[in-house]
């Protein structure tokens, strides 16, 4: 137990140091724009199908579950409120984060791990370049941009899925569903007269998740040792730790954001 806590604290320390080094080299240097675009494609565009599918089916399930809860009270017309609140504040950000952690986090840890064990990371250093600037910064910045957008699209897919189920199974017209969803968003608060509080939560959370999951994946990849077996271990650790950290961070972010917005 003591060793586990020690190991977790050391990992945390390494990730904070890596984050600090990434922050200092955030501009990416020469060729940074091209590297960022490449990572936006890998992390953002290529994750789109899996995130949309996750959002769609989550919305559909939410609509079904909502109908079970609301039908005894004759309140199925409010299914839009239930789905909107759940998707925008929690399920969109968390599920997008976990899906990206699984797909992208594993890929980053495997790629950087392979580079580490084949001495390519050492080669970058010996050529006088900074591996954090070249390998970590573009991935972290791309995730910070892409994961909130993916979460937003997952929200939309979820609401569309729920609309279809509501109309087909519960007899709630699409217009009524979206009206209820809009009422819920308004009820949760509008900041500065334009910005829905739900959307703030739905964007801030995946922004933080994106940074955390890529930092963890980069850390585990760059720390890989022991050949191909070490790459496998790094990949597993990256996905497991990122998934857990997303859930833990979600709790603290929710508490923080509920107090702020």
């Amino acid at each position, binding site marked *: 137990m003591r060793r586990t806590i020690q190991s977790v604290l050391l990992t945390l320390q390494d990730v904070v140091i890596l984050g600090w080094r990434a922050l200092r080299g955030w501009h990416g240097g020469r*060729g940074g724009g091209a590297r960022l675009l490449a990572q936006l494609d890998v992390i953002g565009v290529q994750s789109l199908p899996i995130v949309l599918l996750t959002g769609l089916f989550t919305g559909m399930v939410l609509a079904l579950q909502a109908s079970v809860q609301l039908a005894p009270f004759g309140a199925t017309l409010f299914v839009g409120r239930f789905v909107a609140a759940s998707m925008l504040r929690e399920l969109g950000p968390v599920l997008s984060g976990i899906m990206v952690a699984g797909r992208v986090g594993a890929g980053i840890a495997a790629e950087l791990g392979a580079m580490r064990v*084949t001495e*390519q990371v050492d080669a970058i250093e010996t*050529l006088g370049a900074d591996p954090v600037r070249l390998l970590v910064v573009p991935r972290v910045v791309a995730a910070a941009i892409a994961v909130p957008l993916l979460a937003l699209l997952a929200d939309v897919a979820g609401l569309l899925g729920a609309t279809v189920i509501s109309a087909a199974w519960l007899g709630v017209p699409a217009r009524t569903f979206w009206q209820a969803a809009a009422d819920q968003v308004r009820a949760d608060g509008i900041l500065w007269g334009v910005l829905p509080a739900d959307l703030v939560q739905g964007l801030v959370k995946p922004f933080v998740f994106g940074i955390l999951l890529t930092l963890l994946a980069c850390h585990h990849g760059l720390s890989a040792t022991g050949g191909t077996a070490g790459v496998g271990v790094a990949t597993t650790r990256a996905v497991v730790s990122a998934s857990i950290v997303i859930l833990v961070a979600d709790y603290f972010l929710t508490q923080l954001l509920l107090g702020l917005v």
Partner: protein
Amino acid sequence: MTAPAIDLRDVSLAFDRPVLRDVSLAVVTGETVAVLGESGTGKSTLLRLVLGLLAPDAGDVRVQDRSVPAMTPSEKRELRRGIGMVFQQAALFDSLTVFENVAFALREHRALDERDLTHRVQEALALVDLDAARVASLLPAQLSGGMRKRVGVARAIANRPAILLYDEPTAGLDPLTTETVVELIARLARELHVTSLVVSHDVRAMLRTADRIALLHEGRFAFIGAPDAMRGSDEPYTRTFLAAA
């Protein structure tokens, strides 16, 4: 008197066990020194100390009269721009073509236009007897072991370093390719006037190539001297090592 290009002074380093114990070695400018020894004796660790990738527990590592452990991270990066490193398995960037691999340091550190950059890459590839027109667009996975090694050397020399470090340059190569790589090390030292530190277990090749040999045994140098002096040495471990080779 000019300072040595590489100067290890009473260097000690331990991981879970002592690796180097009070090791001293000075490599003068333009000299080729081969560090020989059994596997796991800390030969490659010496190269990492010179590059500042590791810091000694005690002693000092000086490159061109500057203490490497005392340098800041950016000073170390600056230092490495003047040092070329050839890795045991070449360590080519497998997502980049041969051209991009060789051009890597030039793109990072020099504001060359594309024409000058192409010229410098072709020049580096020609120095290792590779035809740029034939190999430039290939990926590392499409190269043979010997070609990978030569591209690794081309990448190391593209930025015109003053010091070249080789980590097991002939490991895993057939005898003919080994001969080519050994000749290449000697030719680069001659033509580019670089200081070379070669870590190897290939005794015969190094006896022919190096100006001096340093034999590492149990964390200390059992022998440092010219190849002829090594052949005639009475030092017990040196004799055993040469007999086994």
